[in-house]
């Protein structure tokens, strides 16, 4: 039995990415949209680490660390926006937040 081919990691990553995209597009709750974005970023990381293993080069893992940094920054800012939004509008539904100014 051969070792796991890199293509299987790529397909797993694509499937996880698609699940995240479906979550972003179809959910109304802003918190779950942010959670779906975390799924998408994890799919990217799986790809980076899988190719880092395939090429036996540590650069992919360094990039994965930068992606994790971005994910942390995005989660902090996004959740700050959600708190500010909920204080002003009393809703977390993405399709009810349709004003630029109130």
């Amino acid at each position, binding site marked *: 039995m051969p070792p796991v081919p*890199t293509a299987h990691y790529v397909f797993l990553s694509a499937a996880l990415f698609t699940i995240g995209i479906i979550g972003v597009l*179809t959910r109304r709750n802003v918190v779950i949209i942010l959670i779906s974005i*975390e799924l998408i970023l994890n799919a990217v990381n799986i790809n980076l*680490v899988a190719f880092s293993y395939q090429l036996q080069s540590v650069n992919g893992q360094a990039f994965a660390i930068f992606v994790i940094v971005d994910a942390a*920054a995005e*989660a902090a800012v996004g959740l700050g926006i959600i708190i500010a939004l909920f204080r002003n509008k009393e809703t977390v539904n993405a399709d009810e937040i349709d004003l630029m100014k109130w």
Partner: protein
Amino acid sequence: MQTVLPNFFFYLLAAVILISAVLTITRRNAVHSAIWLVVTLLGVAGLYLHLQAEFLAAVQVLVYIGGITVLFLFVIMLVNLDEAARQRQFNRQWAIAMGCAGVLLLELVYFISRGEQAFYFAEPAGGTLQPNTQLIAYALYRDYLLPFELASLLLLVAMIGAVVMAKKDLS
């Protein structure tokens, strides 16, 4: 014989990741979503161990599960989601979402129909991944020093931005 067990763990982890990801985006209660996100992230951390990325697996557990998910849970408790849990959970964008999934399916079918040579990737150039933490330190502090410093700046800006936005009154 030696590769049977790692292969088994890969497919087990892949199943765990995909099932808990689907549960993450379908749960009505946002707390349940966050818990299933933890399961997904643990599966991804196991995958990193499988790929000889021990340092990243530790970072995944510490930063993602210990930091980001806890942040999510705090915000879920700060924001009153009981009202939202009783409302309609999905909006009317299923057509676009299914379009995205269809593109992935087409891609899968195309590559499987092309057979074995479609999965040929470049051969390793003779590098190594061990000792993992040491090599990542060399990469981060030598090859990617400027991006590393920019990332710290980004984190600082994000921290200030989050505090400013979550503050009650800006007087």
